[in-house]
């Protein structure tokens, strides 16, 4: 009886119900997209491994470290493999084609990042050729590159035009791996610098090292830093995760705004839904008075209103959740350059569900209170 009444009530004002559902659907959808943007921000953190440490200059990331540190770090107790790399900052044709490009020591780098899957023949071709580069699957697709292509980058940090031959296309072991990066031989960069700008040669942006046991990561990092204490290039070693978190922290103001906005959108839809419920209740006050006269209690009326509100929230919310997936795909097409990884996580969907329920409950609260409290005589005597 209760359920039938709820369903009947929902369908009574078809237009209003449709509008409210549409509103809830859009709100839950945009809430989901905003949460996805936030989790995309943390993609680098998610993809980091507990075994890897990053060593950089303690002044800031723009200061290099001498190449001679490589062997000294390798000698530190607990360190297994060491690789090095430079942020190259090259531009492909024009600035808006931005993607991350790094000069790395290829053999050790691929060893450290075993989640980058590269076919064996391509790997060998990449290692053999000093001018070779490899790119991620998504990046190759974006610019229509195939193995064997010549790619020219214009250097912003290292002046000149740099030519590379594409020798391999890697793919990620799972969806967390960023497939839009560009790697080439650190030797190519260094040997060229020796000729053009000898003062800047033999310098490394970061060292990447891994430890056998993640439990010893912190003390190994401290041991590395101790080696270079009081030298003219002191180091700062941290886990890959906190290194990536450092990048997130740089833009935390924007992140905070997005987080805030994702809650504001829910508050707006609460106001809309509450409005629609309060109108329905006002129109039906006479009927509620009849219910009361017949002996139905306030709890019953409350269930009636709450049920209606929750039903709308659940239907609208489900629609919103379902629409999030195709919408995220469209979003990725437009914003793929900003966010290499844009996936709707299970956590996002759970949050969306909770938000929809909150909307349903909050929308019913005020109208219920009113319907329960109003005296029968007043409600019966009231005109629409």
């Amino acid at each position, binding site marked *: 009886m209760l359920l039938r009444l709820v369903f009947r009530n929902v369908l009574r004002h078809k237009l209003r119900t449709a509008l409210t559902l549409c*509103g809830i659907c859009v709100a839950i959808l945009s809430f989901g997209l905003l949460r996805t943007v936030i989790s995309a921000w943390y993609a680098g953190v998610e993809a980091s491994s507990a075994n890897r440490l990053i060593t950089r200059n303690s002044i800031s990331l723009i200061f290099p470290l001498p190449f001679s540190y490589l062997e000294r770090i390798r000698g530190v107790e607990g360190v297994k493999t060491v690789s090095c790399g430079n942020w190259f900052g090259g531009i492909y044709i024009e600035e808006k084609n931005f993607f991350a490009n790094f000069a790395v020591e290829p053999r050790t780098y691929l060893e450290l990042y075993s989640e980058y899957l590269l076919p064996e023949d391509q790997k060998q071709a990449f290692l053999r050729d000093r001018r070779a580069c490899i790119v991620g699957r998504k990046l190759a697709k974006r610019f229509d590159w195939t193995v064997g292509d010549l790619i020219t980058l214009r250097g912003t940090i290292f002046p000149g035009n740099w030519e590379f031959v594409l020798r391999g296309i890697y793919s990620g072991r799972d969806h967390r791996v960023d497939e839009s990066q560009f790697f080439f031989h650190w030797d190519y960069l260094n040997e060229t610098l020796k000729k053009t700008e000898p003062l800047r040669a033999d310098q490394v942006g970061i060292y990447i090292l891994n430890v056998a046991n993640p439990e010893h990561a912190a003390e190994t990092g401290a041991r590395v830093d101790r080696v270079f204490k009081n030298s003219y290039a002191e180091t700062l070693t941290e886990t890959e995760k906190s290194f990536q978190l450092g990048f997130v922290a740089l833009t935390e103001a924007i992140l905070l705004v997005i987080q805030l906005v994702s809650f504001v959108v829910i508050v707006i839809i609460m106001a809309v839904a509450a409005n629609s419920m309060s109108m329905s209740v006002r129109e039906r006050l006479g009927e509620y008075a009849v219910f009361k006269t017949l002996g139905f209690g306030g709890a019953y009326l409350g269930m009636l209103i709450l049920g209606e509100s929750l039903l709308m929230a659940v239907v609208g919310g489900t629609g919103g959740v379902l629409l999030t997936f195709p919408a995220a795909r469209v979003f990725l097409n437009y914003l793929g350059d900003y966010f290499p990884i844009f996936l709707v996580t299970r956590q996002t969907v759970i949050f969306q569900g909770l938000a929809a329920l909150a909307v349903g409950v909050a929308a019913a609260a005020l109208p219920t209170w009113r319907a329960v409290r109003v005296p029968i005589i007043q409600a019966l005597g009231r005109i629409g």
Partner: protein
Amino acid sequence: MSLLFFYSLRNLFTRRLTTFLTASGMALVVFVFASILMLAQGLENTLVETGSYDNAVVIRRSSVSEVQSGVERLQAAIVETLPEVALGPRGRPLLVKELVVLITMEKRQSGSPANVVIRGISEDSFLLRPQVTMSVGRTPRPGSSEIIIGRSIEKGFEGADLGKSLFFAMRSWTVVGVFDAGSTGFSSEIWGDVDQLMQAFRRPVYSSLLFRLRESSDFEQVKDRIERDPRLTLEAKRETTYYKDQSEMMAKFLRILGFSLTIVFSVGAIVGGMITMYASVANRTREIGTLRALGFRRKSILIAFLMESLFLGLLGGIAGLFFASFLQFFTVSTTNFQTFSELAFSFSLDVSITLKAVAFALGMGLLGGILPAIRASGMEIVDALREA
């Protein structure tokens, strides 16, 4: 007509809860709309004011920003002798050779790291940037380990206080002054003697040159001369253009974010407005019938309901703007990824944003109200009066 005007107004008053909920929904949308516009405006103000039109910046070709750039001493000396460089008070070229590096500092509240610009300056740097004034303390003595800090740095970063010292590049640097650079990007910088900083950071090259043009219209000529000289691998930009280019990505990001949010939010608010107006038409079918029977035209009914919806929008718009105006007291400090350094800017409200927000609110009211108003005006008198 005035009767209908009051009819609309009093109706909003009678259904207070509904009016309040609908208007507050709209107010939130207007708030978000206005705040994004204000943020974009604030960013633009900061970057436009940072540069001055008569100054030219010289950096290494295709290096995009000062941080990536490098200018050798020899090349700097060549640029210094160009005839288009204005002369300073002592008859020397009004050109400064500066160093720009980044250091990592911790923010005061969150303790999270951020990259702060350290700029190596010489005496003439102040002449070239009249917008920078000392608010407390004095300028650093040349040849000493003294620094001055911008106001945003003093406010936002741990350990940045007058009289204290900061430790970086294996030296400790005494803060001898705080400078005020208005809402420009310089407020987020730390300045010290260029030669000392170059020594300490072991950077043998300058990052950029900044000079005043003898004649503002000389710019194209000097740009041509610098970029064609085979001894130089540099490029010149007007200072205003230089700072504008640097914020392009951030401005674009804010625009995309603001645009998509506003669209999504306004859908919600328009739906809310429509629900309210449809209900308000449905509840008053008999009243509409009566009005029509009294001789009011269909057009008048249409206008009355549209007016009601516009009032609703206006109410929301004013409330939203009222709350958004308080945002002017807040400053946003975040990393500009193009320069990889910290930049502080504030929300800024001006007349055009106010007008845009009000127009936006009225537009939402119009869109939400037009269909219900058409329904109201389309009713037949007899049917409307017979409605229970």
